[in-house]
């Protein structure tokens, strides 16, 4: 099956109030071309599940987020995402802040179609007071240990970015870490994978060992070829993080005029192609 589609078509499936998951980690291999497409729409009131980076920052800064489910929001070389910080301090969305491992556990529970998975993570901490909906569960065995029942984080849609993919939805990561991208896909009703390059299926195994073929086609509904799609986050070995661009983006959180200029220059454009051109010409 040829599952090729576009950012526009994928994002057109979203509705206000939906829960979406965004793969990658911090400022690493984020499906940014899809985030940028969301910014071209009027979508609002989203619940966003993420190991957060500029995806969370941009969606928060543009008022798209009703609830953010996260353990952190970081730009890596800048430890705290400044647009996220600003939105947090304004109290502009509901902050479902979890332990990093709990986030994985919630995605894994949804991926396994389980209502929850037990974990010690969160016990004794204010994760349980910040998130009063979280409940405990007691082991039915003799130990009777009390654990956090991390509820499934079921997603309406998941978006991930890979280095290579074929048209059928097989995806390959060539960088150091698969992160939790497969779990986002398995936790979601609709699953979209952007990639640096679409290649013939037979060529996937030429780029890296079969261990790098982490995403298989039963996980994916749509494939989007998006060279530079993770910009300005890193996407090794295809490219490093664009640190200069990231610094420019981060600095706009302190200056409304600079933010407005950044929006006009990079975000209020008609297409991803125009964005990539604006980045090249800067």
């Amino acid at each position: 099956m040829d599952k090729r589609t576009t950012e526009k078509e994928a994002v057109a499936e979203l509705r206000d109030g939906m829960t979406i998951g965004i793969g990658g980690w911090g400022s690493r291999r984020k499906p940014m071309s899809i985030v940028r497409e969301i910014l071209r729409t009027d979508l609002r009131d989203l619940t966003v599940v993420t190991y957060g980076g500029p995806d969370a920052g941009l969606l928060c800064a543009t008022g798209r987020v009703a609830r953010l489910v996260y353990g952190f929001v970081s730009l890596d070389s800048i430890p705290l995402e400044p647009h996220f910080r600003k939105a947090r301090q304004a109290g502009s969305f509901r902050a479902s802040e979890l332990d990093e491992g709990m986030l994985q556990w919630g995605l894994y529970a949804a991926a396994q179609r389980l209502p929850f998975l037990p974990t010690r993570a969160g016990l004794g901490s204010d994760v349980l007071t910040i998130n009063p909906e979280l409940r405990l569960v007691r082991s039915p065995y003799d130990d009777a240990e009390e654990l956090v029942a991390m509820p499934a984080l079921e997603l309406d849609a998941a978006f991930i970015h890979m280095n290579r993919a074929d048209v059928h939805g097989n995806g390959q990561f060539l960088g150091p870490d698969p992160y939790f991208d497969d779990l986002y896909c398995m936790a979601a009703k609709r699953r979209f994978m952007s990639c640096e390059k679409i290649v013939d299926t037979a060529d996937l195994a030429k780029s890296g060992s079969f261990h790098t073929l982490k995403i298989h086609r039963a996980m994916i509904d749509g494939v989007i070829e998006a060279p530079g799609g993770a910009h300005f986050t890193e996407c090794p070995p295809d490219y490093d993080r664009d640190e200069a661009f990231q610094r420019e983006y981060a600095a706009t959180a302190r200056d409304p005029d600079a933010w407005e200029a950044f929006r006009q220059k990079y975000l209020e454009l008609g297409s991803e192609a125009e964005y990539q051109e604006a980045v090249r010409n800067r």
Partner: protein
Amino acid sequence: MSDFTRAEVCAVAVAEAFRGDGERLASSFGTVPAVGARLAKSTFEPDLLMTDGIASAITNVRPVSGGGGEPDVVEAWLPFRTIFDLLWNGRRHVMMVASQIDRYGNQNFACIGPHEKPKAQLLGMRGAPGNTISHRTSYWVPNHGPRVFVEKVDVVSGVGYDRARELGEASSRHHCIHRVVSNLGVFDFDTPDKTMRLASVHPGVSVDEVVEATGFELVVPAEVPESRAPSAEELRLIREVLDPEGLADKEVG
């Protein structure tokens, strides 16, 4: 040799915190913890596992700046999923930074002020809740003062002894706050009610100075020893191998 900086004393105190850990993942955040953990691995704890901060375990000890020295020797693949598995499995000792810490070792680096609308958003919960309930944890405070060592933290990210005790034996059996190293001294929880005790003061620091800089009542033994001074070999390792740029000095100020 008696000529050493405060940051070097702190690095040695960090290294001492990792003493006895054996074949565990030593995770450190901040520059002084990075120097100290590497110092332990270079001297008395050669079996410590360490990562490159990305997704590899590195068997050789490299400068904290990441630059110079020999190339990384990768001994294992440790993507985040494996790190989570490993930390829940317990073979890890993490040294995190505390923006606030109380007498029971409850730590906050999530935010200052109410969580719904914080005055200052900090790092967030990150892995602190899971780390502290799963394996040995220590803290690094580069700026010891009453706004860091507080009566009550605004938000509990890392679980302290009072809260662990309330959870009961089954849930808290892997909880251990091992040491707190600050720019003024070293602290442990070797007291009957597991409240913070002054274990040693760094050379040049008085006990009164530490007590004044602490926003809660610290347990102070009758005799407070001085933190161990770096040996000549440790100073050589810090200055020539681990931190030739002196980044640790900048962190301590």
